[in-house]
């Protein structure tokens, strides 16, 4: 008798606890999150209400710099506290949110350049501690991973509210100036790196090859523009290479100039772009000598270089898909996915696999604070992962942080 009473009591107690849990979960679905990212050359601040990005401001847009905004990576400028204050004010203004309304402050604590990370972290700590807000440390790469889950200010986006479950498990291809990774995501917040670059990142290869072509900095975008002028014969040659022969491996050259497709023979899922970089240096020297004043070679060359990078990415991605047939989705993230040639091919591959295809809106592909905010949203709601009170002051930068 007594034991049954106790059991009932425990039962009631459990029900109550569950209830509390549920309500506490819902409590943050519409929380105002201020997100900060200073891991890159830019300072970015975003304001979110739940999953909706109300504003997302990047320092180069605000024209703070005396010099060409965001183009020349002068670190001293990045480290300048003034930038972040101005970007912060602008983000609040555009979101029509007052400082008092912010409940969570999310900040990138790694990976990135230590001195740059520190600027964001110090600002976030100060704001959270003095204004009594909760501080959410975020891994920059989780931001890229979850950028596709961002909703616009009207609440529209690829993945509707409470539909996140339909996405996982998933594979993510994260490609940026600093990273090239294939990540297995069992669920939100549960990641495993399957492959990554052993030397240069994909975006870095673009900038360096552009530099070899003597195209200034940053030259990645210029290569893409030049590729747009590639001769019509180029695509014929390239599509000739596209013909798949089941018995033969994919062609190991990217086009008729003979640039190698990196890591075609490696069995793992890692990337490496330093060999391609070297091959490009040689090819550029040859082409320069051959054509001297006529720079038209650069069009076909650019197109073939992009093809080499994109084919390397694609080969490893399809290998990963074959190894993990159970995945429901393919997630793309990172600034290099703004390259129209690369994304076209990645898109074609994913459509063939009939998996869900998640790619963020263009402005959320390259580094931005909106993606830090969305990652914070899930850290808050799924993991209750935040710091409060004195704990806030303990947060430190982690320049080499991994997923």
């Amino acid at each position, binding site marked *: 008798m007594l034991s049954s009473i106790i059991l009932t009591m425990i039962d009631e107690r459990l029900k109550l606890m569950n209830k509390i849990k549920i309500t506490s979960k819902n409590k943050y679905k519409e929380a105002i999150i201020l997100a900060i990212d200073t891991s890159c050359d830019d300072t970015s601040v975003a304001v979110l209400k739940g999953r909706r990005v109300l504003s997302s401001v990047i320092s180069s847009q605000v024209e703070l710099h005396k010099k060409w905004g965001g183009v020349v990576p002068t670190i001293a400028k990045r480290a300048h506290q003034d930038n972040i204050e101005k970007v912060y004010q602008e983000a609040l203004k555009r979101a029509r949110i007052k400082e008092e309304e912010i409940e969570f402050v999310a900040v990138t604590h790694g990976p990135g350049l230590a001195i740059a990370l520190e600027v964001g972290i110090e600002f976030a700590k100060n704001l959270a501690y003095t204004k009594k807000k909760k501080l959410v440390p975020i891994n920059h790469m989780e931001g890229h991973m979850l950028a596709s889950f961002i909703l616009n200010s009207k609440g529209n986006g690829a993945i509707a509210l409470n539909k996140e479950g339909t996405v996982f498990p998933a594979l993510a291809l994260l490609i940026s100036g600093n990273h090239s990774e294939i990540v297995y995501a069992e669920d939100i917040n549960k990641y495993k790196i399957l492959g990554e670059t052993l*030397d240069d990142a994909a975006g870095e290869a673009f900038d360096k090859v552009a530099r070899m072509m003597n195209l200034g900095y940053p030259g990645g975008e210029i290569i893409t523009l030049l590729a747009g002028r590639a001769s019509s014969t180029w695509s014929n040659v390239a599509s000739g290479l596209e013909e798949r022969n089941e018995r033969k491996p994919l062609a190991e050259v990217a086009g008729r100039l003979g640039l190698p497709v990196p890591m075609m023979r490696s069995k793992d899922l890692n990337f490496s772009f330093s060999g391609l970089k070297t091959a490009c240096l040689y090819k550029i020297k040859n082409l320069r000598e051959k054509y001297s004043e006529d720079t038209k070679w650069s069009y076909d060359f650019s197109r073939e270089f992009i093809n080499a990078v994109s084919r390397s990415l694609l080969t490893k991605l399809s290998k990963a898909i074959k190894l993990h047939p159970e995945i429901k989705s393919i997630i793309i993230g990172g600034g290099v996915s703004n390259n129209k040639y690369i994304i076209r091919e990645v898109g074609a591959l994913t459509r063939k696999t009939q998996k869900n295809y998640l790619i963020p809106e263009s402005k959320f592909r390259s580094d931005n604070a909106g993606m830090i905010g969305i990652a914070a949203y899930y850290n808050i709601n799924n993991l209750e992962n935040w710091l409060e009170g004195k704990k806030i002051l303990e947060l430190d930068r982690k320049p080499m942080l991994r997923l």
Partner: protein
Amino acid sequence: MELIKYNKNNSKIIIKKALAVLKNGGIFVFPTETCYGIGTDATKKSAINKLYSYKTRREGKPLSVVVADIKMAQKYVEINEMAENLYKSYLPGPITVVSKGKGKVAKGVESEYGTLGIRIPEHELILDIVKNFGKPFTATSANMSYLPKPYSIKALLKNMPAKNLELIDLIIDAGKLPHRETSTVVDTTMNSLNIVREGQLNIYKKSDKKSILSAQTESAEETINFGSMNMLKYIDEPLSKPLVFFLVGELGGGKTQFAKGIARCLNIKDLVKSPTFTILNEYNYKFGERRGKFIHVDTWRIEDINDLETIGLDNYFSVNNIIAIEWANKFSNDLKKKIKKTGGKIINVIFNYLDDDRRAIETYE
């Protein structure tokens, strides 16, 4: 304010009207191959002031200017090899090429660092106007600050305050422009080849000591091994001072591979990747009883020695630390001074290409 619709037959009249506006220090809105731009005489102070009252929030930021061709550009900026390359292979087109200015435009057009952006739009009418005008005019997008880039006059004029509208003297309406991204801005004042080459020579000249180790490596793996070998040579010396490797060679020369070798020798298990983007990567190492940090630095994107101070490089020049600096030749004299103060030892590592896979690598003290 006059609004005139542009069609293929009335370009002569439009050019005339635009020239009249420019000569009076007025402002006009024009189509380009990207979005609508706003132009005014870039050499006239009053015209630039007027533009600044239209674009209110452009404090301190330089404006880019439209020129007709490379010849006109040369009057206003110094065109180096890199810039010339861009002009040749891409202009006219949607690129703004930043070069060192010659101070021949009105104050506030060049940046405070004396740089100026040059634009040669791929648009016949605009090229005709600037050719006839004989001087550059501004090429900033026609929207007011914080508003979206305008691709139609309708979008531009929507909600424009009368105060701003009054400042515009002429609008050339070419209808709805195809939505092409605004021009890519490329800085050619950075990482100039000359500086890099000079630095490299300096190292050769000043090192009167003989090569301590040299190798011809045939693959990336061999370069890594050579890096380990070099590190091993010093690991048994009592490292009471920092040990700094200056890694000097072209892009793709094997500098990062060499650094991987140092890390391998130091039993570092983390993946050593190129620090180009992060500029400085920090690893902890433990070799026997010795513990310290291995610092991998890449100055490729750095223009100013002060930036190396900002990232805290100086703090790393301390006991037991091993530092590898890619492109150290860019700042070799400054770095040498800093390292000398700490009593540290410098190892110069010079990378030379032989062919696709083979490198000649030599190290000097």
